[in-house]
């Protein structure tokens, strides 16, 4: 380094290997003081690893880190903190039963003679909160505040520790559109005050909106750094994927036919509070259409799907008609074998048996069928052939093919395996809950294509999604769920994202139809 440089952080030639894989291969990242620098890449491109190296969670095999031109070694998050590097993890590290104030001072508590001195801390938090427009109540319990506010608590935590370099790991994944907008403003404000921000994302629109520069990683390798003002979404995605990606889903207009699913007066008791988690929901799905239940996470979608598929019991009085037959009292197995395919919300909890191999997982609902079983013995050769067929068709990648343990597969491929399994089973109704959660654009594109294909082949699709892009792109009909009720029905061609957002946040509802947003 000849001159004093404009970079607050420089990571040069970072190489980090994990057993058998090079997660970061000679990656260089330069963060200017006061900029918002996005780090873009597919799942598994090495973004999180690189940030973990910077935050002291991993030690790189090769490469150096410089702060303000001075070489530093960061062996633990404490070292990182001492250097003024803070990180907001995707899942917040907050003590739920503590107040915001307690969470912020946790670890750096001001004390006098062994007693906490919260007053000064409180004043400082209020001051910081006002300065950056964070608007956090220091006395609220974390468990009582919204996800957005929890995130702002995390930001305050970094500010309280006087961090200058702020790392955000996929900060928008858990937020509503309105909250995302607020976060963008906060980030811009922080940058203006001289904080330097590293922002991990694979959402291009957010990067285009907020970042100054962007470094792209692909498969652990450094692809390049670009100025956001000189680039386009398409260019960024091409850098990230290595090919061009479609952002819109190509599909013909829906041709809805007979009704495959009719739900009447479905209510589910909440496990958390006295109100019903799902309250008197009625809807229908017809063959050849994609009906999307949109809504902010936690508004009863999960409970609704659980009741629909038989994982939970609905309250009495509900009717679930599958092609005209009431299946509300039928078992999960009955529904599975009578035309319901289900891509579950949580692929680890429900979708896969992680300790089973890929092939065992691919016959999870079919192992007892004649094709795969004889006198109670599993026909492993048939299972293998079936698995290989599906793996080929859906391009499920894994280390050892059919015998790979599901746990060792990447999230995208796990999801592809589930998709393959569910779509290949005979079905009249596909229930897909957040089918693309946490996946990168390449995988999303593929999964969307498959969902449209199954629609065109005559299945009804009930999609539950939190991603507005997905809702707008994929669905033929949108239902908004708010606090366990359907509060509106929309045509994606005529409704705006802003309008949907208002319904999702509970600011508006269509009440004209006697409280039920029923189809025409």
């Amino acid at each position, binding site marked *: 380094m000849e001159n004093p440089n404009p970079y607050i952080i420089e990571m040069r030639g970072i190489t980090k290997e994990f057993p*058998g*894989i090079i997660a970061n291969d000679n990656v260089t990242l330069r963060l200017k003081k006061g900029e918002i620098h996005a780090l873009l890449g597919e799942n598994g491109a090495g973004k999180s690893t690189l940030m973990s190296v910077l935050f002291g969670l991993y030690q790189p095999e090769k490469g150096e880190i410089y702060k303000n031109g001075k070489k530093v070694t960061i062996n633990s998050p404490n070292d990182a903190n001492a250097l003024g590097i803070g990180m907001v993890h995707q899942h917040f590290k907050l003590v739920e039963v503590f107040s915001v104030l307690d969470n912020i001072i946790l670890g750096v508590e001001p004390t006098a003679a062994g007693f906490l001195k919260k007053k000064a801390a409180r004043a400082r938090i209020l001051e910081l909160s006002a300065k950056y427009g964070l608007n956090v109540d220091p006395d609220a319990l974390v468990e009582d505040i919204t996800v957005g506010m929890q995130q702002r608590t995390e930001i305050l935590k970094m500010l309280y520790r006087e961090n200058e370099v702020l790392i955000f790991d996929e900060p928008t994944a858990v937020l509503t559109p309105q909250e995302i907008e607020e976060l963008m403003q906060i980030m811009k404000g922080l940058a203006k005050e001289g904080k330097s921000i590293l922002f991990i994302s694979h959402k291009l629109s957010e990067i285009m909106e907020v970042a100054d520069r962007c470094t792209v990683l692909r498969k652990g390798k450094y692809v390049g750094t670009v100025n956001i003002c000189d680039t386009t979404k398409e260019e960024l995605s091409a850098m990230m994927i290595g090919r061009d990606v479609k952002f819109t889903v190509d599909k013909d207009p829906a041709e809805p036919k007979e009704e495959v699913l009719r739900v009447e007066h479905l209510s589910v008791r909440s496990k958390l509070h006295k109100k019903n988690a799902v309250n008197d929901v009625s809807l229908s799905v017809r063959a050849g259409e994609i009906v999307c239940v949109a809504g902010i996470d936690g508004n009863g979608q999960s409970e609704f799907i659980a009741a629909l598929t038989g994982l939970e019991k609905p309250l009495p009085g509900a009717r679930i008609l599958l092609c005209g037959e009431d299946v509300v009292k039928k078992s999960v197995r009955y529904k599975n074998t009578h035309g319901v395919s289900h891509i*579950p919300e949580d692929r680890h*909890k429900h979708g896969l048996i992680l300790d*089973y191999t890929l092939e065992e997982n691919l016959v999870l*609902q079919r192992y007892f069928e004649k094709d795969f079983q004889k006198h109670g*013995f599993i026909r492993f050769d048939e299972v293998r052939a079936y698995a290989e067929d599906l793996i080929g068709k859906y391009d499920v990648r894994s280390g050892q093919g059919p015998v790979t343990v599901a746990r060792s597969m990447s999230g995208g491929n796990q999801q592809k395996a589930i998709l393959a399994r569910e779509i290949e089973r005979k079905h009249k109704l596909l229930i897909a809950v957040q089918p693309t959660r946490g996946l990168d654009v390449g995988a999303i594109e593929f999964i969307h294509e498959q969902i449209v294909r199954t629609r065109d082949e005559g299945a009804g699709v009930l999609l539950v999604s939190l991603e507005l892009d997905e809702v707008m792109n994929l669905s033929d009909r949108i239902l908004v769920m708010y606090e366990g009720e359907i509060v509106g029905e929309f045509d994606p061609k005529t409704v705006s994202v802003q309008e949907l957002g208002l319904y999702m946040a509970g600011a508006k509802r269509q009440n004209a139809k006697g409280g039920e947003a029923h189809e025409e």
Partner: protein
Amino acid sequence: MKNRNASGAVRTSFFKRAGTRSVIASLLCILGGLLVGFIVLAALAAFAEDIPFSDAITGILTVLEGPFSGGSGNILFQLGNMLFSSTPLILTGLSVALAFKTGLFNIGAPGQYLMGAMGALLISLSIPTTSVPAWLVWTLAFLGGTALGVLWGAIPGFFKARFNVNEVIVCIMTNWIAANVVSWVFKATDKLFINYAETKMNFIRKTATNGVSTWTLGLDKLFGGSYMDVSIFIAIIIAIVLYIVLNKTTFGYELKACGFNRSASKYAGMNEKRNIILSMAIAGGLAAAGAALWCLNGAQDFKWDTYLSLPADGFNGIPAALLASNNPLGVIFSAIFLKYIGVGGSNLAAQTSFNEYVSPLIVAVIIYFAGFSKLIKELLGRRKREKNIDVRFAPAHDPEQVRRETAEDRPDGENAPGAPPEPDETPTDTDEAPPEPDDRQSGQDETQTESRSAKGGENA
């Protein structure tokens, strides 16, 4: 797809296989146990004036040599008794292992064992062989005892499935209920079954007194007049059948699925409640079958006042299962190993200056170390995986894993805390279980090995 085929064809070499890792881990644990056992002996020798230090070395070698340390004339005899006494332990080990595979902790094996013993004894002693052929009585007694164990095991299974009551609690209660029920039944029937003839009032008559005893095929004579009979082969066959059921059938597929991930099993349409009950019922049957085989040997004294203590072989099924990483075939070997060390322990007191309280201690230390096998296996796995993982398994591909992956988590896929209710956790938790070894020794002397230790004493 080229990649898949290419890597699909890769055969993991012998040393990288999970099975191999299990074996290596178990052997390392035993080695560690022996080492610590030696340290204990050496420390005792250093502090006690009457014990020469050389005894510590002789002592640990005695334990290591097992039945081969009992003097040249005794080897076959001790071997025979070791194999015979392994039979019930193999079956209780299988019982615990099967339950673990389904995600359940069957600590109720002692109770199931007692019920099995009672069933077998009642039937074998009350049907006169003068009117019914002995082989039929034997078969009825074996099946009857097993059936009673099936019922007994189904109880915790039922409560778990129906009311979500932790099976450990119900198992412990059913253990003591069984202990008291058995005592009560024999007390109430008094002279029908209790052995008054030999002034051994605490024992039930040997089944041989009614002409019922397991076929020996001359094995008893071959093994120096020991108790050896064909029961160990029955146990081995049961282990093989269980292995096939678990790994080759739809039923086994379901049981394991429920054990690994109950939510996903439910999602897949399996009747996870039925599977829980079935798994516990079969586990109960296995433990009971072990007891039945032990009793039906014909020459064994069953101590009927069981309310005083629970049978050691019931609890020792836990270390037997853990040492074998819940593999039914492995249980055969781990059970024999436990008995092998046990014989060595008895010989330790007989042949060195250490008193008889030290031997169970050493045996306990060794068995205790068995609990570490999972940990060691994981450590080995982590090292092995470094060379073994495909490039496409980026460790943190999945942001959901990344999300959970922070300072405390390691980057390798297996440890990414992806699975919500880690099924791995059950066995890990129970790694703490083997404090039982202590019970084992105390209980053992009280219940079933009475005859053996008495006989062993004569020979020593």
